[in-house]
């Protein structure tokens, strides 16, 4: 998974200490992917070497990291490029979406759409292999291909769900703008309808 880009995404909101970055990353991803502090500093060192961040000591002598223009460009490239399927992608994609949402610097719906095109293209490729394998009678190979098919399907369906959630959020925001005054009773009714 891309710790490098995730840290850039956190830094896109403003300068931060190394330990703060670790905490922000873990909070953003719901502690599902804990980072060790050494990994954070190693990554920051590389980012600094590559001039994607700069570091300056604060009054207490602690390094404060700040994203550079080149860092912002690198981050934008990450959001614009779908994750190839062969890179244990589910978590990589999930992390990318989390930071696309939280950083506010990416068009999340576009990230979802680009990823879905990449995922479905990969699914088409396996399906072609499968169609060819059906006649070979090699059951183990077919089942292996089935595994790839269903993994890609799971990701595509999850991306559908993400798109639906984004669309619902946009509709809700639009409705709220058009109808600023919803009686309290109705509003509660509406929200319970979704949460049940």
């Amino acid at each position, binding site marked *: 998974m891309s710790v490098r880009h995730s840290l850039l995404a956190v830094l896109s909101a403003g300068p931060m200490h190394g330990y703060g970055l670790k905490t922000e990353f873990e909070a953003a991803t719901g502690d599902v992917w804990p980072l060790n502090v050494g990994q954070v500093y190693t990554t920051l060192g590389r980012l600094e070497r590559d001039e994607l961040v700069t570091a300056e000591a604060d009054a207490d002598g602690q390094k404060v990291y700040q994203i550079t223009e080149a860092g912002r460009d690198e981050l934008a490239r990450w959001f614009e490029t779908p994750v190839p399927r062969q890179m244990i992608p589910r978590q990589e994609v999930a992390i990318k979406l989390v930071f696309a949402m939280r950083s506010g610097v990416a068009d999340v719906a576009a990230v979802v759409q*680009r990823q*879905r095109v990449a995922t*479905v293209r990969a699914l088409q*490729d396996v*399906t072609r292999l499968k169609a060819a394998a059906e006649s070979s009678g090699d059951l183990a190979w077919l089942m292996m291909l089935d595994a790839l098919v269903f993994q*890609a399907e799971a990701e595509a369906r999850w991306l559908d769900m993400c798109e639906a959630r984004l669309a619902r959020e946009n509709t809700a925001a639009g409705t709220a703008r058009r109808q600023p005054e919803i009686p309290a009773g109705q509003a509660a009714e509406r929200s319970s309808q979704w949460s049940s």
Partner: protein
Amino acid sequence: MVLLDIDRAGRAFGSGHLRVVALDDVSLRVSVGEFVAVMGPSGSGKSTLLRLAGGLDRPTSGRVLLAGRDLAGLDEAGLAQALRRQIGFIFQETNLLASLTATENVALALELDGVRPKAAMAGARGLLDSLGLAAIGSRFPGQLSGGEQQRVTIARAVAGGRSLLLADEPTGALDAITGESVMGLLRQRCAAGCAVVLATHNVRHAAWADRVMFLTDGRLAGETGPPAGPECLLGTGQAR
């Protein structure tokens, strides 16, 4: 050769503040032998696109050309004939006639094209045979499984050499393996020179297509483009 050319088609319903745009400036070209899948959430315009492609509905903007002919230029009779001769429809509900056998259901489509009953029955038998369905030809729809019914429906849809198959969620009610066999059959028809447009929610089935289009709110939101080689998939995962 381009068989179906949907050129910047739009379809709006109602007017004024009740106007709903079901399809907005969508283009799709399908060549002979090509299999295109259209995906998108409910209400994204998949079925509207299929209805326009099949001449069941007319666009409010843009054009739909079938084998180079603008469907808007045909009168009702001409349209009905063009559709019946060239387009086969497959829906989730198979709509087979319960009182006719599988073979008779397929033969009926040929008789409607003007083929004499005896020749139609022979043609239907040959078609079912080529699709591996000879064994069920004499059974009635009620005696067939869902997957068998759907395969007979495909046979009926391609009978008479129809060149464009429009399938709207044809696998909705089928289990995984049976759904795959229906996709295999559609693929086989493409190899035989048909063009197929499939509207589906099922991404596994969409992946059988040469191209997958994604519709969102009536607009084209993305497309997978022409197939890449399978070698891009396995064993070549490059490091970051």
